[in-house]
């Protein structure tokens, strides 16, 4: 026992060194990716960053505050549309709005990406706050279905507000602002923010609310305020993630932001472990790559013995089964509510080496 504690104190600076090396290695990887990867691979690489942001934003609610929200796609849509409308040039808007002209006050607005991204997040946060304030009085499954409802309402509003959003036609030709640098910087900042948040008293209050609402209230935590704060911050992040996604795909329309999108993010959060930042990050990367890698399942296959004529839907079958198997057999997900640490990694290997020995 004593030896183990001693070992841990020695391990601390070494672990910090490992972390610095890992971050440096990743930055190097990002540079290499940006230079040498082909367009498709680079796109998947950057998509990972966006899904990290989105997964963390949902995990803040589902994992850390214990609020089951299913309306994430709606907040992403708000962010994507706000940022798109703020950054598109008047000429581009004219090309898009050929059925119904755009409202004049939006026509001439064109601002740089960074402020647009922040405004997108803020507008999403505002919408989140306005929705959260009444809805967060509900619990569990009622909250889930109400947020799902709001997500749909946002989508229907966007579809019908033609002079502002161009309705069902969507917007095409968004400026390609989601560069490798932009998306990974945002992802890095969000990871850092979440890590700091969870160490702060706000983060502890959120976890307290998740674990036992009544006990938290008895300890003097303003449960409702914690919930609304968490919901608002999560909406902000979802808005930013949605904006990044829009500027990566460069085309947005209301059909993109259905419950399906929320499902994908929920899948990432559940697989990674609700309540684990590193779990969400790892899972976001794995799921994003799998989503693209398994695309071949939907296409025609030639398996020598038999040929299939493309099976659209097979990919989603795989993912739905994955989600169900995970929730039935390993509810805590990959990481549970633990965080990644170098000690954990070492323990993993050491334990494997010692298998069969005593478990003391």
């Amino acid at each position, binding site marked *: 026992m004593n030896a183990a504690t001693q070992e841990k104190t020695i391990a601390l600076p070494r672990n910090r060194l490992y972390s610095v090396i890992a971050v440096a290695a990743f930055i190097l990887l990002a540079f290499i990716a940006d230079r040498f990867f082909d367009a498709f691979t680079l796109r998947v690489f950057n998509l990972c960053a966006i899904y990290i942001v989105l997964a963390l934003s949902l995990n803040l609610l589902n994992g850390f505050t214990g609020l089951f929200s299913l309306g994430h796609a709606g907040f992403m849509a708000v962010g994507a549309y706000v940022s798109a409308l703020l950054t598109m040039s008047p000429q581009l808007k004219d090309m898009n709005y050929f059925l119904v002209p755009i409202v004049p006050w939006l026509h001439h607005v064109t601002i740089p990406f960074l402020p647009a991204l922040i405004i997108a997040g803020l507008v999403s946060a505002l919408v989140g706050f306005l929705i959260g304030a009444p809805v967060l009085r509900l619990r569990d499954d009622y909250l*889930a*279905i109400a947020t799902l*409802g709001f997500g749909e309402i946002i989508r229907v509003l966007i579809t019908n507000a033609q002079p502002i959003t161009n309705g069902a036609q969507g917007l095409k030709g968004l400026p390609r602002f989601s560069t490798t640098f932009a998306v990974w910087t945002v992802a890095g900042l969000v990871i850092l923010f979440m890590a700091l948040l969870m160490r702060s008293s706000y983060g502890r209050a959120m976890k307290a609310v998740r674990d036992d609402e009544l006990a938290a209230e008895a300890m003097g935590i303003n449960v409702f305020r914690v919930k609304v704060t968490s919901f608002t911050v999560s909406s902000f992040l979802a808005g930013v993630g949605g904006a990044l996604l829009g500027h990566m795909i460069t085309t947005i329309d209301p059909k993109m932001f259905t419950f399906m999108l929320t499902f994908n993010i929920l899948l990432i959060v559940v697989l990674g472990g609700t309540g684990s930042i590193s779990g969400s990050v790892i899972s976001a990367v794995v799921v994003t790559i799998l989503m693209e890698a398994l695309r071949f399942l939907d296409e025609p296959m030639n398996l020598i013995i038999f040929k299939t004529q493309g099976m659209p839907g097979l990919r989603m079958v795989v993912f739905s089964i994955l989600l169900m198997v995970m929730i039935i057999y390993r509810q805590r997900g990959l990481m549970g509510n633990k965080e990644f640490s170098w000690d954990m990694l070492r323990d993993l290997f050491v334990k494997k080496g010692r298998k069969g020995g005593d478990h003391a």
Partner: protein
Amino acid sequence: MTLSLLFQHIVNALSLGSLYALIAIGYTMVYGILRLINFAHGDVFMLGAYVAFYGITLVSLPWWAALLVSIVFTAFFGIGLEKVAYKPLRDSPRISIMISAIGASFLLESLGVLIFGGRPKGVPVPDVLSKVLHFGSVSMITVSLLIPLFTFALLGVLLWIVNKTKTGMAMRAVSTDIEAARLMAVDVNRIVSFTFGIGSLLAAFGGIMWSFKYPQLNPLMGVMPGLKCFIAAVIGGIGSIGGAVLGGFLLGIIEIMMVAFLPTLSGYRDAFAFILLIVVLLVKPTGLLGKRQAEKV
């Protein structure tokens, strides 16, 4: 608006309301017993419609035989679904079982795309049902008139089962307190299976009638009706069968009337149900006929 047009809208509203009521009952019964929102219920509805469709087109069964086969098949499918996706999680947090339900829903939809194909299919509506009836200046399809009749007949049977039979008594016991029911020697698993069977049976019937009234099938056809019927169940007071029926009719009638009288708002048709849901949840979370439940500490 002429009187005959109004009458036509009323018939349409009643038949849509009946369909909503049939599906909403499945939600409310499952919720009453397991406290689970069975997200896959809308997809069970879709499955029922497809099975009947293939019964008619591939096996060339007469429509009523296809209907019976599909109902039986779907009922057993619902029982199987519960065994695979929900039973292992019965003692887990409610959120886990709900995630499993969402997974099951997506699984059924993507299996639908995989097996049935993503392209919409036209349904061959039997002549008996698609015949246009004329009552003076009012004309309507037979099926619109038959749907409410069938619905009320099924409802009668269901209420008889729940209130008069021993199985129904066991169902009510399980929904009041699952542990106490088990202590009273109620076979909880059997009752849960039975509930899923009945719910899926009604959903299948609703799905088939839906496909005769709006003769087009696609694998995602269950999503919107599914959500709306869940909303109907909440509005009526989830857990109560009468509430689900009331909510279903209310939603169907309001929806048709809104599109009829305020056509400019028809783009918001789908959002409307959700707005209604949120208003009900905030004003009277237990729904119109629901009982207030004290929070256990």
